[in-house]
């Protein structure tokens, strides 16, 4: 049992082997049936090195991330459990983290969380007892020192591969690399970024991050995704917090004969440019209702072509 718990996560092994990794976000169902999770995971397939289970993303209630992660784990997939500070205080979060470890969930992504105003329960109380950086540090303390925030000792140390999010595409731009440093200092070993639609901005960010030596301390995965149409791009841009889609992209979609095909083409171009940047260790695909495109993006980008899974 302890041997199993000490085992590194598959995602961590892939990243440590020096190969590019691919993670993707699963659509958390509004359902109490495990089959709903299986159905959504099936499209993402066994291709992904990690499947992110969102924690009421956009402050919309769905099946909980811990349940989705446990169901994925049991079905042989590699879950990345997202945990946000919006809905729980430090007592609940530590309990859930222990629970996740007990369910053999190894990858945990610590987030601040979107405000409740974006979601389907804007009248709810938002908690924010601590922020994502405090959450990272608290989780690391549990894993490394085997104690709660209160100092009380744990019977066994949970083992986690800790991750954090980054958004290089919103102000204050020159503070963003410093905030990433805080997250890495607090314990983040892998980073998944917000959607990238602005490659020059990503380049500036990665240059700063490389200069600070941060890309050697954590594995950075760039967030990408196919846009369905100019209309849906406009909707995402004005309704999903933190997603920046430049006008040029929307124009390109509008002018295209087949907007969905163009959206996929743009995504593939961004993947190509991102993985060529120094310091980038993989991609994180968020497909927003177009999950069926994930295997195509992986295949057509050739990102896993030379994959060696004997690691």
């Amino acid at each position, binding site marked *: 049992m302890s041997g199993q718990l000490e085992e590194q996560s598959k995602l961590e092994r892939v990243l440590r082997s020096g190969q590019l990794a691919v993670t993707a976000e699963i659509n958390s169902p509004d359902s109490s049936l495990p089959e709903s999770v299986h159905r959504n995971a099936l499209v993402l397939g066994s291709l992904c090195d990690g499947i992110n289970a969102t924690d009421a993303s956009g402050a919309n209630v769905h099946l909980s991330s811990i349940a989705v992660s446990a169901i994925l784990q049991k079905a042989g997939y590699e879950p990345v459990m997202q945990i946000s*500070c*919006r809905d729980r205080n*430090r007592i609940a979060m530590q309990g859930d983290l222990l629970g996740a470890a007990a369910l053999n969930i190894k990858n945990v992504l610590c987030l*601040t*969380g*979107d*405000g409740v*105003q*974006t979601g389907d329960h804007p009248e709810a109380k*938002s908690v*924010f*007892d*601590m*922020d*994502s*950086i*405090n959450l990272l*540090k*608290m989780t690391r303390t549990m894993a490394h020192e085997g104690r709660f925030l209160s100092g009380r000792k744990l019977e066994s140390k949970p083992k986690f591969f800790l991750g954090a*999010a*980054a*958004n290089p595409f*919103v*102000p*204050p731009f*020159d*503070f963003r690399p*410093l*905030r990433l*440093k*805080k997250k890495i*200092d*607090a314990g983040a070993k892998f980073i998944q970024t*917000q959607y990238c639609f602005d490659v020059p901005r990503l380049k500036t960010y990665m240059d700063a991050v490389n200069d600070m030596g941060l890309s050697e301390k954590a594995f950075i995965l760039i967030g990408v995704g196919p846009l369905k149409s100019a209309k849906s791009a406009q909707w995402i841009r004005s309704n999903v*917090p*933190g997603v*920046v889609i430049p006008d040029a992209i929307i124009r390109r979609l509008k002018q295209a004969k087949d907007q969905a095909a163009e959206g996929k083409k743009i995504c593939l171009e961004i993947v190509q440019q991102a993985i060529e940047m120094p310091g980038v260790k993989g991609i994180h695909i968020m497909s927003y209702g177009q999950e069926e495109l994930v295997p195509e993006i992986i295949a057509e980008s050739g990102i896993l072509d030379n994959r060696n899974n004997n690691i």
Partner: protein
Amino acid sequence: MTMFRLHPAFLELIYKSTVVFLNLGKPLILRSRIINRGLIFAERLFKKPVFDCQMCGQCVLHNTGMTCPMTCPKSLRNGPCGGVRNNGNCEVKPEMMCVWVTAWERSKQMPIYGRNINAIMAPLDRRLQDTSAWANQLSGRTEIIQDEWST
């Protein structure tokens, strides 16, 4: 919203001299309940109009560009979330400039404490809400919270 927007370099000097001044009266402040109440009153009186102080009782203003992080709707103490709008405004309150965009710009104008914005701040001790941050600093309580967190 704050009524005044004073220059951060000026405010950090005021902060520094307040610390020196309060330290002089330390034995008295820590012993007298009346003085403690007076401090709470004074903090409400001065810090509310200048910083829109939320009386968290563990002031970190000098570490956050002399901009109160408790005015962030997510009360973030370690930097801006990923939801900041293109124009630098808040995700939750679209009409308000992001507290951390302001904090970052202002910390660059602060020669004494400006670089403290890079430090990781401890999570809040919610028991200190509505107590005097000045008294908590003098008694060493604020420092203990931060030290315990950092080690």
